[in-house]
């Protein structure tokens, strides 16, 4: 399954790109509308980019009343990414989404690097969301966790159905001349090709730690990249930064992945999941 990384595509502006995906994941929605951070919001670096959008979104009411009906018309399954600043926010958002048939899954953004974090742990946030909905809950984690496999096990125990790995990692870019931060918000989330080895390690470790379905993402730009994420343990992959330079990436990566699988005599993507782990068991305590 090929999806977009949350916040890397506006399906209402580019429905043809969304239709090339198996699932469209919305930009993170919060309980109240957010204008996001002041410009400058993006900065390219040698091997990726920084962003500090700051969860700009219309709030849950704006999503439910305005955007969701229009998104549903596009005809691609929808996951909604939700974010907040306390466990109660995640509970409220999942409650609001639970009876919406347009929504087939919920991603819990537990790791936006551009806003202040909720005081609770990732597992506590999942635990607050879990009783509110029967929809699949995917926990999106930061690669910067001190012990990511432990965090993954904790969110699994709290009821997560899957993991989205990884979010951007905090970074800084300075202006050549002034040596001042290039982003208005100073620090941003780093994404793109440089994130790939970090993301692969996260997928690899969390697959072994939990055996949960994983949406792997971080610097995927080709079918070969996608194959590596599957081998590390992902069952789906998400495209993020590559969508900015190549809106045709979903179809291209899908074709390239099919070719990679065929070359290895694999009949389906799921046959590639976990290949990097050899014969070792998927779940290791």
């Amino acid at each position, binding site marked *: 399954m090929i999806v977009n990384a949350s*916040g*890397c*595509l*506006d399906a209402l*502006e*580019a429905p043809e*790109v969304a239709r090339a995906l198996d699932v469209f994941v919305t*930009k993170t929605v919060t309980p109240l509308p957010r*204008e*996001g951070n*002041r*410009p*400058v*919001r*993006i*900065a*390219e*670096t*040698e*091997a*990726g*980019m920084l*962003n500090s*959008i700051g969860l*700009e979104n219309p709030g849950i009411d704006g999503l439910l009343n305005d955007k969701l009906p229009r998104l549903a018309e596009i005809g691609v399954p929808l996951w909604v990414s939700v974010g907040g600043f306390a466990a109660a926010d995640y509970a409220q958002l999942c409650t609001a989404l639970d009876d919406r048939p347009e929504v087939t899954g919920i991603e819990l953004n537990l790791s936006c690097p551009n806003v202040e974090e909720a005081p609770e742990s990732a597992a506590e946030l999942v635990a607050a969301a879990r009783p509110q909905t029967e929809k699949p809950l995917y926990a999106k984690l930061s690669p910067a966790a001190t012990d990511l496999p432990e965090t993954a096990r904790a969110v699994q125990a709290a009821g997560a159905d899957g993991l989205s790995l990884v979010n951007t990692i905090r970074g800084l870019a300075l202006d050549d001349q002034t040596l001042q931060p290039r982003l208005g918000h100073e620090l941003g989330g780093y994404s*793109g*090709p440089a994130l790939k080895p970090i993301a692969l390690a996260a997928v690899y470790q969390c697959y072994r730690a939990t055996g949960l379905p994983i949406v792997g993402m971080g610097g995927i730009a080709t079918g070969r990249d996608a194959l590596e994420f599957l081998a590390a343990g992902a069952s789906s992959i998400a495209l993020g*930064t590559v*969508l*900015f*330079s*190549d*809106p*045709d990436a979903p179809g291209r990566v899908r074709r390239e992945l099919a070719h990679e699988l065929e070359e290895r005599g694999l009949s389906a993507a799921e046959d590639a999941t976990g290949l990097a782990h050899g014969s070792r068991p998927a779940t290791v305590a």
Partner: protein
Amino acid sequence: MRRRERLSVVANDPVGPYSLIRVERGGLEPGIPGQFFMLEAPARPLPRPMSLCLAPPGELSFLLEAIGPGTQALAAVEPGDELHVFGPLGNGYRLDVEKPLLVGGGIGVAPFPYLSEQLGNPPAVLGFRSDWHAEAAALVPNAEVVVEPTLVTERLRPGHDVLACGPEPMLEAVRELAPDAQLAWEAPMACGYGACYGCSVEIDGVLQRLCVAGPVLEAA
């Protein structure tokens, strides 16, 4: 309709300090003057937004100034190189104006050759920081050229429909003098089609994505 294609570079002509990158048109439409295209910047992670400068038969041309790693990479392309080009994107100028006056500063003259052609070569006032930079004025017919310290706003004429493009201080000054002007703004963009939310600027008091709300906006 926007498309993304890999196009061959036909020529890279110096125009003063600027580069006029000419590519084969392929299946791309030139769009409306003031619209822009995302040009692959060789070996860089992100493409760069460039307004269309000229649309001769079978070609698209972009005038750019090499000011950073992306534009430097683009300024170094050679005939025969291939670039991914995606567009046309955004909203261009309204062309239903009675008495147009093009007002541009520096590399902000980039969309004017195509705009001038579409409007029947109206008068233009173009400002540059040096005579060398002012060589770009040769691309725009009927242009009055001023060089710093003279500013374009000193030559604005009343009773015209102003269509402007240039650095932000120039656009702000034009807006003061010509409240009905159409202004083409600039912002860093990662995608150009509304995906990244990187190019948000304050429009009418709220942050909006320049790539979908603009880049040409009404001044008032």
